[in-house]
């Protein structure tokens, strides 16, 4: 059985079989869930469909959330691209727009794929769909990227955590960024080593990220953090595809994330007692919003 517990396992099995990381992930899932190859692809294709719909829908939305903190950010970014006024241009600006869009759909109770979590749901589609659009990749290639991303996330779920309450935002947006970076490299035809390097580079740079959402909502800083993380995933993939590796191996980066998560105080792990949630403005928004929603 092609079990993998570590990133090193994934890499070794891919090299032994002269195949890609996504091949190993598919083999694993077929055995684990008793599915055929086609069924695994079909389930991931369903995820892709929901991601595309959310990215499209979010760019057209302008109505504010109940708290008023999030409204037309994705719409604005899409408009800048449409009008050719983007500073970064190309894949980065599209990734920003798509990640904002998916996260906005999430914040407004729309349909998304929680990957790795609902709060970090914009990063993988933002990064992968932007690269696919600019590079003209087809759905099968995106699905291979999603499978790779899912396999990388699975290792973290087993070895550490994907919960902001347990490990801070590094465990949600940090891991999501690593997953997206690895998925992008696979889509671009990078080697298994480059996939792993992209994952490690991305996650390393997100270590220590705290979960401090204003008023406990999945809005600030979450929505814009998803956008910036998607751009970060593309940058990490770019480095890895250039042959730049991570000095610290991916599995050790995951261990470091776990250690850092344990060391973070409770106030910075989804309790909304510290950080941005505890700023003057954060507290004012929370008081106003939660005050208006009280029940007896």
């Amino acid at each position, binding site marked *: 059985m092609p079990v993998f517990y570590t990133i090193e396992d994934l890499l070794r099995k891919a090299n032994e079989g002269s195949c890609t990381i996504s091949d190993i*992930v598919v083999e*694993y*899932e077929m055995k*684990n*869930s008793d599915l055929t190859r086609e069924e695994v692809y079909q*389930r*991931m294709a*369903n*995820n892709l469909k*929901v991601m595309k719909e959310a990215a499209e829908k979010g760019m057209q939305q302008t109505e504010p959330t*109940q*708290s008023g903190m999030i409204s037309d950010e994705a719409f604005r970014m899409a408009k800048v691209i449409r009008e050719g006024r983007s500073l970064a241009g190309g894949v980065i600006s599209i990734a920003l727009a798509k990640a904002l869009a998916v996260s906005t*759909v*999430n*914040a*407004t*109770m*729309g*349909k*998304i*794929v*929680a*990957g*790795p*979590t*609902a*709060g970090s*749901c914009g990063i*993988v589609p933002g990064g992968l769909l932007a690269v696919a659009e600019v590079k003209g990749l087809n759905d099968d290639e995106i699905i291979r990227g*999603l*499978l790779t*991303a*899912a*396999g990388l*996330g*699975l290792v973290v*779920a*087993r070895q550490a*955590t*994907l*919960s902001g*309450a*347990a490990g801070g935002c590094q465990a949600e947006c940090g891991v999501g960024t690593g997953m997206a970076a690895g998925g992008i490299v696979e889509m671009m035809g990078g080697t298994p080593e480059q996939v792993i390097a992209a994952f490690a580079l991305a996650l390393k740079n997100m270590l220590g990220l705290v979960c401090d959402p204003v*008023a*406990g*909502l*999945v*809005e600030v800083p979450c929505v814009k953090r998803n956008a910036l993380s998607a751009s970060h995933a593309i940058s990490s993939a770019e480095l890895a595809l250039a042959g730049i590796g991570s000095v610290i191996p991916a599995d050790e980066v995951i261990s470091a994330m776990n250690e850092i998560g344990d060391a973070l105080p409770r106030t910075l792990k989804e309790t909304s007692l510290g950080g941005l949630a505890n700023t003057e403005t954060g507290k004012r928004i929370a008081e106003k*919003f*939660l005050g208006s*929603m009280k*029940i*007896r």
Partner: protein
Amino acid sequence: MEKLSIFEVMGPIMIGPSSSHTAGAVRIGNLARKLLNEEPKEMKIYFYGSFAETFKGHGTDIAVVGGLLGYRLDDERIRTSLESAANKDIHVEFHRFEAPNAHPNTIKIELTRADDSTLQVIGSSVGGGEIVITKIDRFKVNLTGKYPTIWILHLDKPGVIAKVTSTLALNGVNIAFMEVFREDRGALSSMVVQTDQNVPAEVIREVNSFIGVKICRFIEPI
């Protein structure tokens, strides 16, 4: 946290914004609805802990009512569940409650059937959209909705449990977890059996017909 399928990491497809505060609440509602086994005419929902403070912003209220109406995690009708309940003349109330030592994200649901009988369910959203139902009426349970589950109310007397387990065995159903809870000797007791296979309707009917079994419900994984 032991994740086994890649679709637990890249998924589920769900209505946002929060796996614990939205998806988990839908699942608790789904399970309560399956235990009730009909559309309730009244839903009283009590929030404890973090749910009581932030339920509005995460749509926890909308999510749990959606779950009680039978909508799945990814059903966009969840967004308008309060309106749907009102259109169906279902009376919905929200309250706070205190539950010392409970998980911070806990919901108590009191449902009333058409014949005025009631069902009370307490459940917690324990992270990542995963849930655990801890109480059904006065019976303590530990029900996650991950496995096909049979919930039985039965008389605490010799042979009832054996009859249930042998019937399952004869029908090729393997028991993964099983839990029996009683308050008093010889009184009505609760049995939760989580299995590896779906249990055919005729098996549930057969168990329902046993002397000493008051209620037998089958709950598909959610």
